[in-house]
């Protein structure tokens, strides 16, 4: 049991480390396509951490929605705009040193804050099990209204995305 | 409807104006017919009101009263009597005929007819408002459409004329506004209500000052010498129907103001200013006559003749007796019909010849016999030929002024001779003599134009032959007014 726990701990930390590495890959790689692949890896890694946190349903959603849908979208767009994106061009702008300094400051400060904060972790909360059924009941019961609102937003945004992305007919009409 | 007949009369044109706004720009026929039918309806309403009008009664009738701005005790108060009702009737007729005359407007018809109907609302409101504040509002409402009507559809110097008209009149009416406020604050309780204000007593000094303020506003509108110079410009530049309205109705607003406000509110001041008014009247009559004699522009001549003829109204007012008042009131009505007709006739000629130069015409009597006959008719009416309305009113004015002062009457008769001179001189230059070959292609007056003139001719003759048809409506009110003025 202890060993198992240890392995799983090691596994989780390893996953975390790997995810961070891939995350760095997302922001640092020159080839955008590689970036996207790294993002996929990050997402999958996060899904694994979800599993470790007993959020299996969310992990599944993460894989399906993110990796399945959003990533596809991203990759399509990358390919559509690819011929122009010279991999040789500098992919970061001039403010990266400043950004690094600022962000490190934030990370340090927030990190200390996080470590020092006495989080009210309760055993009851730790023991609670969340089944898919209870999630479904909450979604359709307590959170039915936000759920519907989200669905409307989703539809509206998709239609909007289509309208925006669509080529203007009149634009290419005369030529 | 019977109880709100005056409101209907005032606001029907406004309804028509909004109806015009909803018609597409291009449907000019529809716009014209909407306007015409509106003016016809207003005229019909005026006739209906005539049925309700009790001629034997001296006070206000058909009163409509509603609180408008309670904080300042401003009321929506309409009413009519023997002074305002003839003016309402005149406005209805002149508006109808001038609308017929407006059918020749060729550009921006929609705006034109909208403004035209707005103008009619303003005029009607001015004549029936019995609340000083409401009166002032209507008085100013008249200015705005008039400004645009002259400034857009006028002749070559239209902007100048329109601005001059607007600023001049506005300057006068601001003094009037001060006067109105003075009356308001002097009254206790503070009120703009004419029916209450008439009975109150005011100090002589206060009366004099406020009388002068009102006088300035009204004098510019009449116009009384030396405030008359906007008139020739506005008349000459305005399109024909607007000249007709200007001469037929707008000028009367000034003298109406004397009858309605200056005299009943400030009777002591009126008596005090009597000699001054008589002198101004004489100056206007003689001066206008002489200047009209010197004109070569047809329209300008008629405009100056207005100055002269409106002088008779002032003379009757200055006489301050029964005959003077009757004559002045009748002169207001007859001048509206006669000068309106003359302007229409100038327009008829101008439409054909595109010239108003009196010296350039000649011999049109043979070329346009019907036009010649009608022009002669109106000229004779204007110079005060008996059996036409102008004679009766001038006779009554002279009779009244004779009772006041013989010298004044004697001098004013010079104006009558001058009227005959400049009108016959005009007739000679336009109609008589050899035909200028340049005008050999002019066509005679057509049926529609005769139709616009015929009602005026009928009115002129009817009043001239039997003046009681209109005087009987005025006399009780005027006698009541005389009692107030003479204490």
């Amino acid at each position: 049991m202890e060993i198992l726990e240890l392995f799983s701990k090691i596994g989780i930390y390893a996953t975390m480390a790997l995810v961070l590495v891939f995350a760095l890959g997302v922001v640092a790689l020159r080839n955008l396509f590689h970036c996207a692949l790294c993002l996929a890896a990050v997402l999958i890694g996060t899904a694994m951490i979800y599993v470790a946190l007993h959020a299996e349903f969310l992990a599944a959603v993460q894989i399906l929605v993110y990796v399945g849908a959003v990533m596809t979208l991203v990759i399509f767009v990358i390919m559509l705009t690819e011929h122009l994106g010279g991999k040789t061009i500098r992919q970061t702008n001039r403010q990266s040193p400043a950004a690094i300094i600022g962000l490190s400051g934030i990370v340090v400060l927030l990190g200390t804050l996080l470590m020092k904060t006495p989080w009210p972790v309760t055993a009851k909360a730790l023991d609670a099990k969340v089944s898919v059924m209870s999630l479904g009941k909450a979604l359709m019961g307590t959170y039915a209204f936000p759920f519907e609102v989200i669905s409307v937003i989703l539809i509206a945004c998709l239609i909007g995305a289509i309208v925006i992305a669509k080529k203007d007919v009149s634009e290419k009409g005369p030529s | 409807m019977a109880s709100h007949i005056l409101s209907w009369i005032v606001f029907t044109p406004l309804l028509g104006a909004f109806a015009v706004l909803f018609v597409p720009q291009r449907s000019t026929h529809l716009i014209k017919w909407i306007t015409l039918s509106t003016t016809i309806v207003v005229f019909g309403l005026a006739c209906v009101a005539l049925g309700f009008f009790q001629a034997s009664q001296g006070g206000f009738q058909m009163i409509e009263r509603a609180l408008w701005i309670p904080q300042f005790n401003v009321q929506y108060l309409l009413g009519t009597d023997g002074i305002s009702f003839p003016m309402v009737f005149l406005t209805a007729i002149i508006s109808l005929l001038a609308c017929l005359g407006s059918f020749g407007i060729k550009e921006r018809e929609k705006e034109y007819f909208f403004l035209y109907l707005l103008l009619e609302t303003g005029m009607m409101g001015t004549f029936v408002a019995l609340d000083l504040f409401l009166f002032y509002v209507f008085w100013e409402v008249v200015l705005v459409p008039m400004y645009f009507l002259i400034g857009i559809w006028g002749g070559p110097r239209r902007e100048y004329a329109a601005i001059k008209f607007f600023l001049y009149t506005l300057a006068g009416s601001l003094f009037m506004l001060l006067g109105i406020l003075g009356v308001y604050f002097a009254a206790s309780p503070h009120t703009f209500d004419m029916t209450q204000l008439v009975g109150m007593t005011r100090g002589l000094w206060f009366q004099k000052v406020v009388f002068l303020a009102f006088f300035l506003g009204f004098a510019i509108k009449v116009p009384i010498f030396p405030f008359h110079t906007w008139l020739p410009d506005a008349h000459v530049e305005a399109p024909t129907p607007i000249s007709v309205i200007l001469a037929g109705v707008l000028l009367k607003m000034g003298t109406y103001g004397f009858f309605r406000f200056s005299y009943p509110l400030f009777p002591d001041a009126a008596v005090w200013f009597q000699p001054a008014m008589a002198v101004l009247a004489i100056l206007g009559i003689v001066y206008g006559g002489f200047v009209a004699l010197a004109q070569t522009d047809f329209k300008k001549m008629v405009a100056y003749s207005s100055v002269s003829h409106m002088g008779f109204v002032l003379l009757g007012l200055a006489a301050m007796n029964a005959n003077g008042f009757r004559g002045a009131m009748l002169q207001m009505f007859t001048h509206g019909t006669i000068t309106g007709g003359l302007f229409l006739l100038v327009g008829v000629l101008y439409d054909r010849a595109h010239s108003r130069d009196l010296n350039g015409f000649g011999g049109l009597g043979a070329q346009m016999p019907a036009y010649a006959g009608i022009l002669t008719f109106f000229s004779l009416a204007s110079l005060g030929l008996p059996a036409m309305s102008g004679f009766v009113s001038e006779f009554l004015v002279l009779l009244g002024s004779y009772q006041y002062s013989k010298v004044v009457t004697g001098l004013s008769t010079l104006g009558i001779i001058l009227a005959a001179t400049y009108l016959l001189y005009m007739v000679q230059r336009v109609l008589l003599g050899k035909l200028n070959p340049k005008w050999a292609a002019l066509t005679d007056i057509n049926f529609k134009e005769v139709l616009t003139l015929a009602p005026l001719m009928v009115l002129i003759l009817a009043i001239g032959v039997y003046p009681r048809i209109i005087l009987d409506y005025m006399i009780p009110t005027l006698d009541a007014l005389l009692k107030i003025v003479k204490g």
Partner: protein
Amino acid sequence: MIIPLQHILIFSLLLFATGLYGVLVRRNIIGILISIELMLNAANLNLIAFSKSTSLAPETGQIFAIFVIAIAATAAAVGLAIVLALYRVRKTVYTDEVNLLKW
């Protein structure tokens, strides 16, 4: 809970910082969008971690995470559509070349 809450929070902080760094420095708009996804992920992780360890109603965190995923998807869709439109008009996907808001 196998590992302490603080560690997960630190991890998500680092993930968030990395994403923010990407947003701040990447020139390619698509890169920025991808980085935003990273940030959203970090936030989701926080939601789940807190719901697992401190909340009395354990479903809440997960449900909000689902909402966030949904919103993230729409954001990606709209954002990418804008990228396409921009690309079509300006022939570029680099932020420093799109500076109409400049003084």
